[in-house]
C-alpha cells in the first residue's frame, strides 16, 4: 500500500501540474462566459473589487488549511474561528483599545484556538473531523456570548485598512495579504524540508515516524498556523463589513473545503497543490459571486454549494477507481 502511494507521489509531479493548468483554463473560460452573460454588472469595478476582497479571506484560510489537509487532518472550525475573531475585535474596539493591539490580540486568540485543536488531535488523539466539528460550535458559541448575539460596529483606522485599504491607491490590501500567504505556503510546500515532511506524513504517517519525523509536531504547527490565518480572515471580514457579528463565517467551511478538494487535495492527505487550491478558490468564488449577481436566492446557492462538494469529491473518487481498473 505504502509503495503504491510513494509511486503515485513521484509520478504525480507532472500530472498535477496538468490538473492545475486545466483548472486555470476552466477559470478563464468561466470568467469570460460569466462576463458575457452577466454584463454589464459582472465585469465592472463595482463587482470585481468586492469579489476579490471576499475571495481573499477565503483564499487565505484555504491556503493554510491545504497544508493541514495534505498532512492528513482537517479543520472544520475555521468558520467558527472567523466568527469568534470578528466578535472579539468588535468588543475590544468598543472597550477603546488601540487598533494595532486589537489585531495582535485577535491573532493571538486565533493561535490559541489553533493550538487547542492541535492539542486535541495530537496529544489526545481525537479524530480531527470530530474534534473540529465540536470546537466549531464552541468558537461560535463564545462569539455569541461575547457580543450577546448582536452585531457590533467595528470602526478603527487600523481595522479599516486591513480589509478596505489600498496600497499605492490601486491594489486592495486583502489581495496583498492573499498573495503573501500564497507565496509563503507555496515556498514552504514546494521548496522546503518542512513541506516535504508534510507530504510524507500525509502519504504514510507510520513510515514518516519511523524515518525520524516528529509527526505530532508538524501536525500541531499546521493547526496552529490554520488558527492564526483563520483569525486573519476574520479580521478581514470584520473590516469589510465594518461589523463584528457572531454569524460571520457561518457555513464557510463548506466553501473552503470544497475549493481545496476541487484544487486536487485528497481527503486522506499526501496529495495536493497550493496552486490548485488557489484555482479552486477562484473558481468557486467566481461561481458563487455570479449566482448572486444573477439574483439567485441564497438557499439555491446553498444547494449548489453542497452539490459542488459532493460532485467534486465524486469526480475524484470515480477517477481513482477508473485508474485502478486500468492498472
Amino acid at each position: 500500500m505504502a509503495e503504491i502511494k510513494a509511486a503515485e507521489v513521484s509520478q504525480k509531479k507532472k500530472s498535477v501540474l496538468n490538473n492545475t493548468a486545466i483548472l486555470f483554463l476552466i477559470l478563464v473560460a468561466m470568467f469570460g462566459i460569466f462576463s458575457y452573460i452577466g454584463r454589464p454588472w459582472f465585469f465592472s469595478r463595482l463587482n470585481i473589487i468586492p469579489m476579490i476582497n471576499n475571495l481573499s479571506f477565503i483564499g487565505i484560510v484555504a491556503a493554510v488549511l491545504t497544508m493541514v489537509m495534505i498532512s492528513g487532518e482537517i479543520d472544520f472550525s475555521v468558520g467558527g474561528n472567523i466568527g469568534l475573531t470578528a466578535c472579539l475585535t468588535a468588543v475590544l474596539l468598543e472597550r477603546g483599545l488601540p487598533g494595532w493591539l486589537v489585531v495582535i490580540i485577535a491573532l493571538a486568540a486565533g493561535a490559541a484556538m489553533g493550538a487547542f485543536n492541535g492539542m486535541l488531535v495530537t496529544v489526545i488523539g481525537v479524530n480531527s473531523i470530530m474534534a473540529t466539528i465540536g470546537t466549531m460550535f464552541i468558537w461560535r458559541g463564545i462569539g455569541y456570548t461575547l457580543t450577546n448575539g448582536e452585531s457590533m460596529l467595528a470602526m478603527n483606522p487600523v481595522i479599516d485598512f486591513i480589509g478596505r485599504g489600498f496600497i499605492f491607491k490601486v491594489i486592495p490590501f486583502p489581495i496583498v495579504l492573499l498573495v503573501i500567504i500564497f507565496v509563503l505556503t507555496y515556498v514552504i510546500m514546494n521548496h522546503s524540508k518542512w513541506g516535504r515532511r508534510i507530504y510524507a506524513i500525509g502519504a504514510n504517517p507510520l513510515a514518516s515516524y519511523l524515518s525520524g519525523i516528529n509527526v505530532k509536531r508538524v501536525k500541531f504547527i499546521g493547526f496552529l498556523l490554520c488558527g492564526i490565518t483563520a483569525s486573519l480572515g476574520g479580521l478581514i471580514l470584520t473590516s469589510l463589513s465594518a461589523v463584528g457579528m457572531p454569524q460571520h463565517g457561518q457555513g464557510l467551511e463548506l466553501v473552503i473545503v470544497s475549493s481545496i478538494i476541487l484544487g486536487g487535495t485528497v481527503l486522506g492527505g499526501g496529495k495536493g497543490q497550493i496552486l490548485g487550491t488557489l484555482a479552486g478558490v477562484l473558481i468557486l468564488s467566481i461561481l458563487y459571486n455570479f449566482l448572486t449577481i444573477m439574483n439567485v436566492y441564497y438557499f439555491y446557492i446553498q444547494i449548489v454549494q453542497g452539490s459542488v462538494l459532493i460532485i467534486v469529491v465524486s469526480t475524484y473518487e470515480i477517477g481513482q477507481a477508473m485508474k485502478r481498473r486500468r492498472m
Partner: protein
Amino acid sequence: MEKVEKKYSAFMNFLRTPTPTLIGIYIVMFILFSLASKNFLVIQNIKGIFNNFAVYGILSAGVTIVMIGGGFDLSIGSTAGLAGIVSAVLLMKNIEVPTPVVFLIAIVIGCTVGLINGIIITKVGINPIITTLGMLAIIRGVCYFWADLNPRIYNVFVQNLGRIYIGNVFPITTIYIIVAFVILTLVLKFTRFGRDLFTIGGNENLARLAGIHVDRIKIISYVISGFFCSIAGLLLISQLGSGRPEYGTGAELEVLTIIVLGGVVVGGGKGNFLGVFIALIIIQTISNGMVLLAVPVFMRMVVKGALLVLVIAIDALRSRRNLQLY
C-alpha cells in the same frame, strides 16, 4: 458450569461498557440539579424533560445504527426538517392530502435521502462525513423552497402525535423511543443484518472477505437513519404546531454528543442502545438544568460544544490501547 461462567462474563461485559459510569454520572447530576434548583424535581419538569428529547431520541436511533456500521450521518437535522416541512405543507387547509398519505410521503422522503447518502458513500466511495455534510447543505436549501408558506398544523391527529401523555404523566413520545430502541436492539442481537453490521464496523475489509454484502448492509443502515429522520420530522411539526424550513438545525451536534456519550465508538463496531438511552436522558437533563439555572442562551451553545469535545476526547482515550506514536 459453563452456563454460570457465561452469565458471569456477560455481566462483566456489561460492567466494561461505559453504561454503568453513565448511570453513576446521571445520579450525581440529578442530585446536584435537585439541590441547585427547587424547580428541578417537580413532576411537571420531569415530564418536560422526557417529552423534549423525543426528536433527538428518534434521530439517535437511526444514527446509532449507522455509526455501529462505521458510517456517519450529519444530514439528519436537515432531513428531519425537510420531511417536517413537506408534511406540514401537505397538511395545509387548501391542499388537505389524507393523513396516512402524508405520513407515507414523509417516510419516502427520509428513506430516499438515506438511500442517496448510502449509494454515494458506498458505490462512489466518498468519506461519509463529507457526503453528509454536502447533503446537509443541499437538503436545508431544498427546505427553503416552502419558506414563504408558513404552514400551521390544525390536524388533531398530527398534533396529538407528539403531545399526548399517557395517564397524564408519561409522554407517548418516550414510548416511541423505547419501542424503537427495543426493536433495534433485537435486530442487532438476533438478525443476520445486526451481526453483519457489527462485523463491518469492526473491520470492513474482513467483513468483505468473509462474504458479507458490505455495500448493501451499509446502504440499509443509511435508509434506516433516513426513516427515523422522517419520523422525527413528523414529531417536530407535531410538537411545534407549524412547519418552518429551519427546523432541526444543529440537531446533528446534539445527536452526535448523545451517541458518543452513550458509548458508541466513533469508527464503529461497538455500541448498545441502553447506553444511548441513558445518554439521551443525561444530555436532556443538562439542557433542562441549564435553563433552570438561567444560563444565558449563547453560553449553552458553548457548553454543548465543549461537552461534545469532552465526550469525543474520552472516547479517543478509551479506545486507544497502545501509546500513540504519530
